[in-house]
């Protein structure tokens, strides 16, 4: 009796100890990330655009879809910082609102890719008979060049923001699932998982507590890149007319609207192009930083 009570006590203090240690580790991690120059630059860029996206309604000087026949294709001026498009709409306001749409699409693709990739990757590892089926299907999906698959799917499903998200998720998810599966396989073989199994821990507990927690870092790094690629891919879908439909602005369809007038009205395509370049640059820098710090095996920095 005494022994078990002692054990319980030990367990409690151990758990608090672990929690403290984790908090300490997280603090250290944050510190190291903030000391990482390229991560910091990327982080600042992304936070800036995230704020623009969240507060788009407050920042934008005009309504993004407000036509103005008298002011079509006017160059940048005090009234219209980034000029106007063929509808007389304010490009600055459209870029600000477009950031919201494009970041939203990128974010949801990364999120859904993460969720489904993790689910399928773990499932494949855990349920042996499913492994071959799931992996061959994913291989088949991966055999399509990613963006091409997204284009074909988006055309088939019809142009909408949600269909763009679905198409891009289907295209990018298989690679994430593979990363998860590889990471889970490594963790599965380690002694502490075996120990936990021996101690009678349930499957769910093992998966969430041990396996996923340890497979998380390579996945997060990968999802940052998925986010970046999705922002560019949205532009490609819009260029081909299968992205988010008008009049709602996305960075991609503003460029798509402006590409016809690039010699007459360069400002329509240039400003959203710069916004995309910066967002993607920021995400890549963050990805590089995360990889250096939380997943040093794949690091490129020395």
């Amino acid at each position, binding site marked *: 009796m005494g022994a078990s009570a002692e054990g319980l006590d030990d367990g409690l203090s151990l758990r608090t100890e672990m929690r403290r240690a984790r908090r300490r580790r997280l603090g250290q991690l944050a510190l190291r990330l903030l000391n990482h120059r390229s991560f910091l630059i990327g982080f600042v860029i992304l936070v800036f655009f995230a704020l623009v996206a969240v507060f788009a309604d407050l920042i934008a000087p005009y309504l993004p879809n407000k036509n103005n026949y008298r002011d079509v294709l006017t160059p940048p001026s005090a009234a219209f910082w980034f000029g106007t498009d063929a509808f007389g709409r304010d490009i600055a306001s459209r870029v600000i609102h477009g950031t919201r749409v494009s970041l939203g699409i990128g974010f949801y693709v990364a999120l859904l890719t993460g969720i489904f990739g993790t689910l399928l990757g773990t499932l494949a590892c855990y349920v042996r008979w499913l492994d071959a089926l799931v992996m061959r299907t994913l291989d088949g999906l991966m055999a399509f*060049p990613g963006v091409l698959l997204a284009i074909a799917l988006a055309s*088939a499903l019809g142009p909408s923001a949600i269909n763009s998200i679905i198409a891009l998720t289907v295209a990018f998810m298989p690679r994430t699932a593979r990363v998860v599966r590889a990471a889970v396989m490594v963790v599965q073989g380690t002694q502490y998982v075996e120990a936990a199994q021996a101690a009678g821990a349930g499957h769910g507990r093992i998966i969430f507590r041990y396996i996923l927690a340890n497979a998380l870092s390579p996945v997060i790094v990968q999802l940052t890149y998925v986010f970046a690629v999705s922002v560019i891919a949205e*532009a490609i879908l819009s260029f081909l007319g299968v992205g988010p439909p008008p009049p709602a602005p996305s960075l991609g369809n503003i460029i798509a609207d402006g590409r016809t007038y690039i010699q007459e009205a360069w400002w329509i395509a240039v400003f959203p192009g710069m916004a995309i*370049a910066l967002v993607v640059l920021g995400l*890549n820098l963050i990805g590089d930083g995360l990889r250096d710090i939380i997943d040093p095996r794949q690091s490129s920095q020395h």
Partner: protein
Amino acid sequence: MTLFIVRRLLSAIPVLFVVSLMSFVIMWLVPGDITAVLGGADASPEEIERIREQVGLDRPIYERAIIWYSSLFHGDLGYSYLLDRPVVDAVLERLQVTLSLATLALVIATLVGVLLGVLAAVKHNTWLDQGSMIAALVGLSIPDFWFGIVLIILFGVTLGWLPTGGFVPITEDVLGWARSMTLPALTLAFTQMGVIARMTRSSMLDVLNQDFIRTARAKGMRAHTVVFKHALRNAVVPILTVVGVTTGVLLSGAVVIETVFSLPGVGRLIIGSIQRRDFPIIQGGLLVTASVFVFVNIIVDMLYGFFDPRVRDGR
């Protein structure tokens, strides 16, 4: 090695099955059909029904699936009603353009990317290193269709050095082919240069820090001999991986570049066929493109085996 190749080729079979299924499903998902394209805005319901019968669209979906698979089994991708030729021919004709484009872009991206990457690794932590990595990141971040239009205006209109678009077959005029391919290939290569440069740099850094290089250097071997003879050879496997992935990116990128530069490649064919609802071509085009990609990856795997014996013996 032979066993490895055979195994690798066999493993492609289920993959291609999934690919064929997916191609069929995408075709099936596309709303509307060829009748709308031929009949136009004011075709009557009777006219539409007549065209549907002629192209076999009145058949139920399972029947069309059976036809698709039974002919696929005989190596037949079907017949394009709109192009009046077998799908295989239509796709292969176009493959010339896309492969020209993707291969050239791959060569440019690999050459420039590896060069930049090696330079950055050798001059580690100098302005050259940082400069080339920033260039690589910028390349990664710019949408390629946008970049392509800028190049057209700069080199085609303002400077007048290169054609603004169109394709000249290499069999007709080699110089004309090279001129017509320069801008599209550069545009397509631009984004992938960055990916390859980054990968090259990091693998080179890994290798350069290993003992045998230090030993070689200590023995007084000249710097570029060390770099090219030892370091690059060892860094080649990760670089190959990226090149394999890059091929896929280039094949998808070709869709956009072919549209911007009005090149008649497979990408345009697939997009065009989706727009004109040429179902056999949608299926066949997707299947062929995916097969090319699978095939390239098999070659990449074989090259791994060539450069790194562990790959072929392991697993």
